[in-house]
C-alpha cells in the first residue's frame, strides 16, 4: 500500500515537472538560458515588435572596475559563430543608436527566433574596452491554424445531435512556414518547438452572415498541457440556425496573434441545426368510388 502511494507520488511529481516545462506566462524555463530578464519582458510577438536597450554610461563591477565613465558604447549582435556582428548586417527593419555616449539601441521588426545584442563600453580614446554585456531576446514565430471536421453531415436536427463518434472539430497549429527562425545567432540549435509552448484555443460559432468577435464569450477555452499543437471541440449545439465555426489560437506566454481560422476556410462550412419537425396531422377524406 505504501509502495503504491510512493509510486503515485512520483508519477504525480513527474507530471508536474512535465507540465512546468511548457513555455507560458509563468514559466519560460525552456527559453532560459540564454534568455535575459527575469520574466517575459524579453519575449516578443512577431508582429510590430520594437524595444529599446539602454546601457549604463558608467561601468558595473562585473569583469572590471566599477564607476568608470564610458565615452562610447558600441553595439553588436552575436552572430552565428558567436562573434561580433555589425548591426547593419542584421536582418531586421531598423536598428538605431542614440543617446548619451550612444547608450541606447532601438530595434524594430525582428524576425522570429533568438537575438543576442552586445554592448561594449569604451573609455576616452578607446583605450579601454570592456567585455561585452549580452542581452538575449526571443521573438515568437507566427502560427498557422487549420481546422477540420469529422461530421458526417453538416445538417442535423435539433433533437438529433451528431453521434459522439463523429462530432469533432479539430484544430491543428504549426509555426508559420513563411517566417523562418533567425539564423544569425549561435542559439539556433536550441530553438524551441511549438510543442514546447502552452497555447490557448478559443472556440466560437458565428451566424452564417456574422463576423467573429473574439471578445465575445467563446464556446470553449482550452489550454492543453499535452499535445499542445492540436485541440478539439465537440459539436453539441442545439441552437437552431446556420453556423460558422472558428478557432482562435494564441501563445499564453505573451500577447500575440491571435491566429484564427474558420471551418471550411475561404468558403466557410455552414453547419445547420434544423428544428425538430412536429407530428404529422392525419386527416380522413371521403373516397369517391
Amino acid at each position: 500500500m505504501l509502495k503504491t502511494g510512493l509510486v503515485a507520488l512520483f508519477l504525480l511529481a513527474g507530471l508536474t515537472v512535465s507540465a512546468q516545462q511548457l513555455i507560458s506566462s509563468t514559466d519560460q524555463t525552456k527559453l532560459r538560458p540564454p534568455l535575459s530578464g527575469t520574466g517575459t519582458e524579453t519575449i516578443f510577438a512577431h508582429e510590430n515588435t520594437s524595444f529599446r536597450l539602454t546601457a549604463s554610461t558608467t561601468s558595473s563591477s562585473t569583469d572590471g572596475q566599477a564607476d568608470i565613465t564610458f565615452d562610447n558604447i558600441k553595439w553588436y549582435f552575436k552572430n552565428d559563430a558567436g562573434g561580433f556582428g555589425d548591426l547593419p548586417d542584421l536582418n531586421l527593419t531598423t536598428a538605431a543608436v542614440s543617446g548619451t555616449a550612444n547608450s541606447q539601441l532601438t530595434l524594430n521588426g525582428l524576425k522570429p527566433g533568438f537575438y543576442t545584442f552586445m554592448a561594449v563600453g569604451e573609455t576616452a580614446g578607446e583605450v579601454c574596452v570592456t567585455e561585452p554585456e549580452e542581452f538575449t531576446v526571443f521573438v515568437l514565430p507566427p502560427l498557422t491554424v487549420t481546422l477540420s471536421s469529422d461530421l458526417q453531415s453538416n445538417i442535423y436536427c435539433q433533437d438529433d445531435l451528431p453521434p459522439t463518434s463523429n462530432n469533432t472539430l479539430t484544430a491543428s497549429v504549426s509555426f508559420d512556414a513563411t517566417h523562418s527562425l533567425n539564423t544569425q545567432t549561435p542559439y539556433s540549435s536550441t530553438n524551441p518547438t511549438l510543442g514546447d509552448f502552452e497555447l490557448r484555443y478559443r472556440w466560437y460559432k458565428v451566424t452564417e452572415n456574422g463576423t467573429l468577435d473574439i471578445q465575445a464569450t467563446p464556446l470553449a477555452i482550452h489550454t492543453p498541457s499535452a499535445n499542445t499543437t492540436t485541440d478539439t471541440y465537440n459539436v453539441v449545439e442545439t441552437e437552431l440556425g446556420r453556423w460558422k465555426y472558428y478557432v482562435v489560437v494564441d501563445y499564453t506566454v505573451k500577447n500575440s496573434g491571435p491566429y484564427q481560422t474558420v471551418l471550411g476556410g475561404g468558403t466557410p462550412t455552414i453547419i445547420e441545426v434544423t428544428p425538430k419537425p412536429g407530428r404529422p396531422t392525419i386527416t380522413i377524406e371521403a373516397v369517391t368510388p
Partner: protein
Amino acid sequence: MDIRHWYPCYNSAFIAFILLLGLVQVGYGQSLITKKRTYANFQGTYETGINLALVLVTGTVSNASNATNGNVKSYSTLNVPVGVAGVLTATQYLEFTTNGQHTNRILIDANTAVTLKITFPKEILGLLSGIEIGSFTELKSVNAGLVNRAGYRADNHNPIVSGSSLLSLINGAGEFEITIMPNQSFNGVYMKLLGNGLSVALTNNFFHAYILENGSVSCIERDKAIDKLSGVRAGGINLLNATGSVTNPWGVVDGSGPMTLNLGTQVLSEVFHTTIFNTASRPNQVAKVVIQNPGGGLLNLNLLTGLKIQPFLGNTPVGTPINESQVLSLRLLPGPEGKNELMVPVAGSFDRIEIKMGGVAGALGSLIVHEVSRTFDPFLYPAHELDEKLMQCESVDLKEAILNYQPMNYDYNYYTVVSGGVPMSNSIVTESGTYYIEAVDKISGCSSARIAVEANVLPLPGKPHLTITDAVNE
C-alpha cells in the same frame, strides 16, 4: 700585412664574419670588431726646385710630421711659391708601417681603398694640373742635391688622380677626402705639387691618409665623431665666385661649441659640413642633429629652402635626407636659444652626416649647428603617437614605444630605475609610472643610454549594465 677586400659593405660573408668575431668579443668587455681607420704613420718629403746663385729655391712641405701624428686636426702644408721661373715641386709621402719606422713599412694589397684628406683652396682650382696624387713603393732617403733638399723619394710612383679628374672628385673648395684604389700593391700614398712661374701660390694642406681595417672599437668610441670636412661647392655658379664659410667647424666634433654655416652672398653656391664618425653604423641607429635658426623659434623644415642633412656611407647617400624624413622627430628644446632637435632612425649603415645649405634661390642664409651625433639609443615615437602607445588598458608594452625596434640586432632591457637595478622580466607593465628602456647591441654587447618613458595604465572598466524599455509588443 696582407690586406684584402674580404669585407665589402653589405656582403653577407662579411656580416657573418663580423658577427662571429663580435660574439667572441662580447666576453672581452664590450667592444665591437669593425672597420676602423689605420693611419699612415711615417712620412717623407721631397722638395725640388732651382738653384739661383747657390740659393736653392724649391717647393716646400712645412709641418710635415703633422700629417702622420695621429691628430686629425693637424696637417702639413705643401707649397709652391708664386712668381718663381722654373720647375718647383713639393712632394709628401705618407707610408703605412707597423711602428712608425720606415724600416717596418707595410706592403698593402692592390685595390685596397686608401683615403687622403686634403684642403683645396679655391684660389688653386686653375692649378689642379699641378697636383698629382698616387701610391708608391720603394721609398728611399735622398741626400740634398743641387736642386733638391734632403728627404725621401720613391723609386716607384703610381699616379692616380690629377688635373681634371681631381677637379671632378672635389668640385669645391675646402677639406675633402679623396679615396683611391691603387692597382698595384703599395706602401703608401703621396701628393705632389708642381709649379713653374705661378701667378698664385699653390698650397695644399695634407691632414692624413688612412685605410680601413678590422679592429676593436670600444662602446664609447664606436659612435664618436672623429673628423670633419667642410667648405664650399660651386652649386649653381662658378666655384671661383662661391661664397660661404663655416665658423668653428670642429665644434660639433670636439665639443668646443656650436658651429655656424654661412652661405654668404652667393646663395646659389653651397656651403657644407660633414661630420665623420668612427665606424659605420649598425642598422637603424639614430642620427641626431641640433640646429638653431639665428632668427629663433621652431624651424619649419619645409620652409628651410636649400637645407639638406644627409647621412652617407663614404660617398654614398644613405636614405632620405634627415630633414625630409617621414619619421623625423623634431622638437624645440627647452631654453631661450630656440634649439631644434632633429632625430631620425637611419635604416642603412652610415658613417657621416653632411649638412649642406644653398644651391637655390631663397636659400637659408645662416644656420647654427650645436650637435651632430649618432646613437643606438631606443628612438621613441613622436609625442602624440607615444602617448597613445603608452596609455593602454590593464597593461602597457614598453617596447611599443620604440620606433626603431630592431630585435634582430638589439636586445632590450626595461628598468624601473634610471641606473643600476635589475632588468624587468619582460616589457609588459601593469602599473603607471616612469620606466627606462635600454638597447644592448647583440654583437658588441654595448649598452645604450636608458631612455625614460611614462606608462599610463588604465583600469579595465566592468561591463555596462543593460536594461530593456519602450517595448512594443502587439
